[in-house]
């Protein structure tokens, strides 16, 4: 499975390019409207072409990501996919309660994290050692919160609550408790 960092790198390039383009466009526009021009009317063809472009962009973004980001489809189909490992985790009083001290996963395994909260709304996220995020989900009390993830290379991850649950929740961190090991 593609690493989530690769997706983030792609997003960074795409959005930065767009941001630079739109800033330059507005600078050009701001300069141009202060000067007389040959024509001042905007054609309806240009308008409808722009509308069509917006529709294509709006719809195609999700189609492209659904077909290129592997966890999107896996997430929607997770009930039908058999997990190689299942971890039942509960959260209460601003604490994670893990099934074992370390969560060991083999490379290329699909691991299911079933997380329940007994009091507040929390978050559940895995983070790399450089603090970047691998994935996250919300943990809502009274519901099963499950996420399936395939780990394609060895690594060590930190679990952290990704949702505000009051001042006590800010440091809900379990350092290096998930280990992905080679077979």
């Amino acid at each position, binding site marked *: 499975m593609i690493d989530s960092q690769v997706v983030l790198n792609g997003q960074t390039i795409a959005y930065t390019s767009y941001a630079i383009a739109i800033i330059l466009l507005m600078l050009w526009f701001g300069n141009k409207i202060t000067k007389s021009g040959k024509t001042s009317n905007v054609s309806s063809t240009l*308008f409808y072409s722009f509308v069509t472009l917006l529709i294509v962009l709006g719809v195609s*973004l*999700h189609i492209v990501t659904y077909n290129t980001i592997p966890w999107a489809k896996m997430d929607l189909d997770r009930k039908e996919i058999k997990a190689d490992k299942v971890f039942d985790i509960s959260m209460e009083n601003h604490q994670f309660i893990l099934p074992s001290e370390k969560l060991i996963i083999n490379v290329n395994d699909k691991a299911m994290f079933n997380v329940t909260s007994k*009091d*507040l709304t929390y978050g559940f996220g895995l983070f790399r050692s450089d603090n970047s995020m691998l994935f996250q989900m919300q943990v809502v*009390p009274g519901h099963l919160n499950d996420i399936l993830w395939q780990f394609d290379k060895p690594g060590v991850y930190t679990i952290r609550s990704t949702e505000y649950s009051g001042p006590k929740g800010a440091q809900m961190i379990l350092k290096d408790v998930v280990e992905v090991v080679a077979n």
Partner: protein
Amino acid sequence: MNFKDTFMNGEQGLFKPATLTPMQKLVLRFVVIGLIYYGFAVIEGMIMRIYQIQPISAIPDYQYFAILTAHPLVGIFGSTYSIVFGAFLFLVPFLMKKPLWSYKLANWTCILIGTGTLTFWLAGFFTHYAPLYTLYWPLPADFSQFNPLGGTFFVLGIALVMLGTVFFVINIFKTILYTPEGWEKQPSKALFLSAMGLSGMTNLFRKKENQKEHLVSLPVAAIARGTVDTALNAGIILFTGVLILVYLIGHQIGFDLKNSAVDALLYKNWFWWGLDLIADGLVLIFVAGTWYLLAMLITGKDLFMQNIARAALLLELVVSWTVWSHHLMSDQAQPGFLKVASGEMVTAFELITQGLAFFITLATLWSARPLKMTNPLKFLLGGLLGFALAVPAGIMQADLGLNRILHNTQWIIGPHVHVAILVGLTMTLYSAIYILFPIVTNGAKLYSQKLANFHFWAHLIGGIGMGAFMGMAGLKGMLRRTIYLHGEFNLYMILAGICGTLLLLAFLAFFYNIVMSVGLKGVIGIFTPSKLDEKVLVSEVEK
């Protein structure tokens, strides 16, 4: 004039509060209150910017989260609601050339929003009630972390703001529909249909010669449609406040109610449905309407593709009722079809509706070339750029794949929320303030154009820069709503802090410029009663 004279009497002594009508004074009061609360929000923002670099020992974490809770509410309700409501209570009668339905009710709106904001801010400051604006159940009723008495006052403050909001809604619709004394009977039903955009929508399917005349101008139609979302949102927040209040008061009198009686996911859906009526409803609709008005006032021309613009506003209203699920894409218990249909697909329509408003405004400006680069025009362009940056950032995060790695990171709150609010919304409001300034002050002159230019560039660069550096930190995994103790993201946070300082300096320059324009006596005069007729909008001096 020397400095002292200018400071006391305003630029060239042109601002004379005694010549102002009650409505002009009321608008200026709304603006002053809005700017003071904007100052609150900027200072709070700077405290939090410093805290993200290095936690401040004098401010404990529970105080930090109380600031984090108050900050968006002071910004949206205390500042934006004040400025927007004040402007619209003036503009609707101004554009419809009829008196406001009730001056007294408008005055109460001002008082309630001002005191309500102060009440919830003080409750947060003194008692550290901090469930954040998202209020994820059952956090607002968690009395192991929060003082129930503080929560009660907090909810009371919000309720006062919502009551003021309800008064605003009534006043706007009544003003559009009512018949002033001595006037020929107004066609209320036709006015309502025009205001809601239904007659504009049917015009799209009629031949040109059969198209109905618009009884309500496009900016008024936009205000009316945004006001529908304002009303629905006030209902949701009031209901939510009452629910929390039941738990708060129950605890204080010794009856602890069962938190699990309220389903956390259902509550989250309910809350976000209501909150998105602000974020994706009234903000986008009000902003689009304000862009149209500003473009028409700046160019003196009709709006490009007016019927499409009217229809798009109606579409935006419907879209705003059906997009809430993009806030629950990381909630695994949320049904998948809601994530895809509401979260992804309907949300993508916002790219279209806001893109249309963007294009229509630019095309209208283009049609009037050459234009002078005035303060209203440059701030309008800044506002347009803000939304052009922030809306696509929001569409990206409302995606099943990307949300998994973006939700609750600084990406959400930086390039999307802060760029939308600080650059898009606030610069649009500044444009409106600069254009309305001579009208509501009977021709007062701006003290310094150099300060206005500094205000523009410092705000634009500060706002975009802060959003960008927060976004970069978000892409590196930095969460929002938490505290980093070891400087993990210091490079980005220092750069964001420098940009935040620019925003603070921009505000100080603007505030100083306005105070020097109207003078200290002028500021005081705004808050003294006017002796002129309440029904007159602008005094004869201005006319």
